[in-house]
C-alpha cells in the first residue's frame, strides 16, 4: 500500500478525522468498511424525497468529502478549495465576453490545477532529475527533496477540472451556477480516486435530474459492481501474487518464470483498473448516476491505435481533445502529426507516474502509433496485404501481436528503469533460476477464463444469452460470483495500481 507517514501523522492531529480513518481505513470499494459506508450513504440518499434534489446533492457531497478525508483530511480540504476556485473561474468566464479576460481566467484555472498536480506529483521527480544532471556534470546537487503527501486521485480530478475550464472557455458547456452540483462533479466518490475522467457535459446534467429508484438500474449497478469485485479479487490480486515476487527480483528467476510474470502482469493491470472502473460505474448506477465506459476489451485490439480506443478511454479521449487536437491533430503533414502524437503520448506517459520509465513507456506507445500510421497507409495501397490482414487468421495474428507488444511494454510501467532493464534481460537471454512462487496451473486457468470471457463478449454471445436467463438464474449467478470472488481472493489484498496516479 502506497502510504505516506506524513499523511498519517497529520491526520492524528484531527481527532474527528482520526476516528473516521479508523472506521474507513482504506478507500477501497471491495472492503467491508466501505460497503457499510456505501450502504448508509445509499440508504439515506434514496430516503431523501425525490423533490429535494439539492438535499441529495449535498448529502452525496458530504459523503464524498468524508470518503476522501478518511484517507487525508488535508487533501480533502485542498480539493474543496481548488474546486471552489475552479467554479469561480468558470463563473467569471461566463460573465464576461472580453476574450483576453476569458483567456486569462482560463489560464489561471489551468495553471492552478497543473500547479497543484506538479507540486504533489512531480516536484520531487523534477528536482531529483535536475540533481542527477548536476551530479553527472560534476556539480553538487542544488535542490533537496521533501516528503509530500500522496494525493490519491489528483491526476484524475485535476484533468476533470481542466477539461471543464476549457469547455466553458470554448462555449461547449455552460458554466454551472450551482456550487454544490459543481463540487459533486469533481468530488463524486465513485470516480474521485481512479476515474473514469468525467466530462462536465456528461455529468452535470445528471445532478439536476430528479432521480427515482429504479430496480432495473439497480440490477445493472449490482452487475457492474460484482464484475469489478471479481476482476479485482480473483484476477488482479491473484496475478499480483504470481508476478510481484518475480518482477521485484527478475534476475533470481528463470526466463520462463519472467515470461509468465509479464503475462500475469498484463492481465493484472487490466483486471485491476477495469475492475475498479466497473465497481465505480456500478456504485454510480446504484446512486442514479451514469459514468463513462473506460475499457472495451483492449486486449482484443487489432493494432495499437485500436488498443488506445479501448484502453482507459476517458484518458485517451481527454488527451485527444485537449492535447492532440489543439496541437493540430492529424490534419497536417506527416511530420507534424508524428510530433503531435509523440507529444501527446509522452505527456500521457508522464501523467501515469513521476518517473522516466513512464515517460519512456508513453514514448514507445507514441512510436507504435506512428509506425502503425505509416504501415496502415502503406497497406491500404496494397489490396492483397490489406485483405490478408483483414481475414480471420490475419485478424487473429494482429490481436496476438498487439497483445504481445503491449505486454512487453508494460514492463516499463514501474518507477525504476533498472528493474525494467533487468526484466528485459531475463526475457531475451535464456537463464535458469527460481520458478513461480505458486503453481502455473492457477495462472493458466485464470488467463484462459479471462480471455474466454473477453471473446464471448466480443462475439456478442453473452449479450444474446443474458436477456434469456430467468431472473432467479441471474440472481444465483450474482450470489455465486460474489462467493467465488471471496473464496478465490488471495491472502493479502493489493492496493489499486491506478491509485498511484
Amino acid at each position, binding site marked *: 500500500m502506497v502510504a505516506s507517514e506524513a499523511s498519517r501523522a497529520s491526520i492524528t492531529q484531527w481527532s474527528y478525522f482520526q476516528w473516521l480513518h479508523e472506521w474507513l481505513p482504506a478507500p477501497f470499494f471491495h472492503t467491508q468498511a466501505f460497503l457499510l459506508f456505501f450502504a448508509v450513504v445509499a440508504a439515506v440518499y434514496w430516503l431523501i424525497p425525490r423533490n429535494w434534489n439539492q438535499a441529495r446533492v449535498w448529502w452525496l457531497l458530504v459523503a464524498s468529502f468524508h470518503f476522501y478525508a478518511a484517507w487525508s483530511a488535508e487533501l480533502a480540504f485542498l480539493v474543496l478549495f481548488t474546486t471552489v476556485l475552479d467554479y469561480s473561474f468558470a463563473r467569471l468566464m461566463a460573465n464576461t465576453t472580453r476574450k483576453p479576460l476569458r483567456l486569462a481566467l482560463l489560464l489561471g484555472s489551468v495553471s492552478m490545477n497543473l500547479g497543484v498536480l506538479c507540486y504533489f506529483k512531480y516536484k520531487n521527480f523534477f528536482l531529483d532529475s535536475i540533481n542527477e544532471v548536476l551530479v553527472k556534470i560534476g556539480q553538487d546537487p542544488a535542490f533537496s527533496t521533501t516528503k509530500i503527501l500522496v494525493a490519491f486521485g489528483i491526476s484524475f480530478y485535476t484533468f476533470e477540472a481542466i477539461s471543464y475550464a476549457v469547455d466553458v472557455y470554448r462555449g461547449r458547456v455552460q458554466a454551472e451556477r450551482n456550487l454544490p452540483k459543481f463540487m459533486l462533479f469533481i468530488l463524486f466518490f465513485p470516480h474521485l480516486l481512479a476515474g473514469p475522467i468525467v466530462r462536465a457535459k456528461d455529468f452535470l446534467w445528471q445532478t439536476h435530474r430528479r432521480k427515482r429508484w429504479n*430496480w*432495473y438500474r439497480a440490477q445493472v449497478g449490482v452487475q457492474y459492481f460484482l464484475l469489478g469485485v471479481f476482476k479485482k479479487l480473483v484476477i488482479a490480486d491473484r496475478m499480483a501474487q504470481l508476478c510481484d515476487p518475480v518482477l521485484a527480483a527478475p534476475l533470481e528467476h528463470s526466463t520462463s518464470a519472467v515470461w509468465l510474470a509479464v503475462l500475469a502482469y498484463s492481465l493484472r493491470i487490466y483486471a485491476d483498473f477495469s475492475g475498479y472502473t466497473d465497481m465505480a460505474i456500478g456504485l454510480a448506477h446504484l446512486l442514479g448516476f451514469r459514468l463513462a465506459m473506460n475499457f472495451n476489451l483492449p486486449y482484443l485490439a487489432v493494432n495499437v491505435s485500436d488498443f488506445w480506443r479501448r484502453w482507459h478511454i476517458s484518458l485517451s479521449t481527454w488527451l485527444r481533445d485537449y492535447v492532440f487536437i489543439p496541437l493540430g491533430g492529424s490534419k497536417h503533414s506527416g511530420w507534424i502529426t508524428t510530433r503531435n502524437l509523440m507529444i501527446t503520448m509522452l505527456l500521457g506517459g508522464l501523467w501515469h507516474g513521476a518517473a522516466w520509465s513512464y515517460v519512456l513507456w508513453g514514448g514507445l506507445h507514441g512510436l507504435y502509433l506512428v509506425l502503425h500510421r505509416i504501415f496502415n497507409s502503406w497497406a491500404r495501397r496494397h489490396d492483397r496485404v490489406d485483405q490478408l490482414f483483414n481475414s480471420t487468421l490475419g485478424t487473429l495474428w494482429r490481436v496476438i501481436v498487439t497483445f504481445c507488444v503491449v505486454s512487453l511494454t508494460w514492463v516499463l510501467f514501474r518507477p525504476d528503469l533498472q528493474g525494467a532493464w533487468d526484466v528485459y534481460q531475463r526475457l531475451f537471454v535464456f537463464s535458469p533460476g527460481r520458478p513461480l512462487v505458486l503453481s502455473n496451473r492457477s495462472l493458466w486457468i485464470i488467463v484462459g477464463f479471462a480471455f474466454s470471457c473477453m471473446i464471448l463478449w466480443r462475439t456478442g454471445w453473452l449479450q444474446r444469452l443474458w436477456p434469456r436467463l430467468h431472473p432467479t438464474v441471474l440472481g444465483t449467478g450474482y450470489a455465486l460470483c460474489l462467493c467465488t470472488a471471496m473464496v478465490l481472493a488471495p491472502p493479502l489484498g493489493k492496493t489499486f495500481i491506478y491509485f498511484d496516479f
Partner: protein
Amino acid sequence: MQAIPLQPVLWLNQGQPITRHRNSKKRSQRHSALLAVVSGLALYGCIHLLCLANIEHSTELRDPVFYDKSMSLTQSRRAAPGDATHLVMLGSSRTLLGFHANYAEEVFHNETGKALEAFNFGIPATGPIYHWLCYQRLRALNLLPDVLFVEVLPSMLHDPGTPLEVQFLPAERLNTQEFQHLQQFGYPIWHTNRNYWQQRVNPVWECRFSILARISPSWLPWNLRYDWGRNTDSHGWATPPRQQITAEERIEREAQVQQEYASTLATLQPQGKPLAALQDIIACCRADGVQVMLVLMPEAESFQAMYPAGLQSVIEAQLNQLGVPIVNARDWLMEDDFYDGHHPFERGARKFTERLIRHPMAATK
C-alpha cells in the same frame, strides 16, 4: 431525447440519456430486476447461513486440521482389531513429527503380543488449552481413547496474565459454546472479540482459506493450506520431506528457533490457566476412565541451553503436583536426530517412540 433501441439490453447504453419505455415493458423489466437482485441476496444469505451452521456444528471449516485428524482417527479406530487398546497422543508439532504411531503399534505388539491402536493427534502451535478443547471434541465425537498421552510444551505454560497460547488460538477456530468455555482459561470475553464477530457476520470470507484448501490447495501458499492434518500417514504422523540437512542449514534453523523461543523461555512463568487446563484434562480423563500420562518431548542440547537456570526444575515441580505419571524425554535424542533442535527426523521419531512405548510408566498404561 434519443430513444433507447428496443433490443435486449445487458448494460445501459453508455452516453445516451434514458427515456421512457412503454409502461408494460418497463414494469416487466423492473419486476425481473427486482426478482434477480432479491433472489441473489437471498441465495447469498443462504450460503452464509449454511457456512455459519457448518462453523457452529462442525470443525471442517473453522478448524480443518482438527477435522482431518479426527476423520483419520475415526478410520484408524474402525480398522483396529476389536480387542486393541486405543492410544491417542495430544500435542504440538513436536508430537506431530515425533510420535510415530504406526511404529508404536509394532513395538507394543512385539513387546506384549497384544494389539494397540495408536494415533498421533499432534497439531502445530498448540498447548494445554487447545488440548483440553481437543479432548472435549473427541468426547463429543465418541473417539475417546483408553490411554491418553499429553505433550507438555513448556513455552505454552507461560501465563503472565493472559496465557501465551491464546495468541495461537484464534477465535475463528471456535464455535460459540467453545468460545464461552475457554474463558475459564483466560480466553478474551466473547462479546468483544472482533474476529469472532467478523466470522459470524461474513463466514464465507473468514473461512475462505479453509474452503479453498479443500477445493484446490495449490492456489494457496503452504502456510494457509491447513493441510497438516492431511499430509500425514494413516496414524497421523508426519515427517519432514528431507531427512538430512547441511551444517549451514542446521545453523540457520537453530537461529530461527532461537528467535522464536529464546525471549519466551527467558521470562517463562509456568503458572495459572495453562496448568489449570492440564488439571482439567486429567480430571476429565479420570471421570471418563481414560488413563493419562504427561510427556515432556525431546529437545536437543542447543535448545535446552535456552532455558534459564532452575526453570526446568520449576516446570517439573509444577507438573508433579498434577498427580499423574510424567515421562521426561527431554534427553532421549542426540543433536543429529533433530532438524532444528526440537522437531525430530524420522530416525529420531522412531527412537523416541520405541523408548516411550517401552517406558515402564507407559507400559503399565
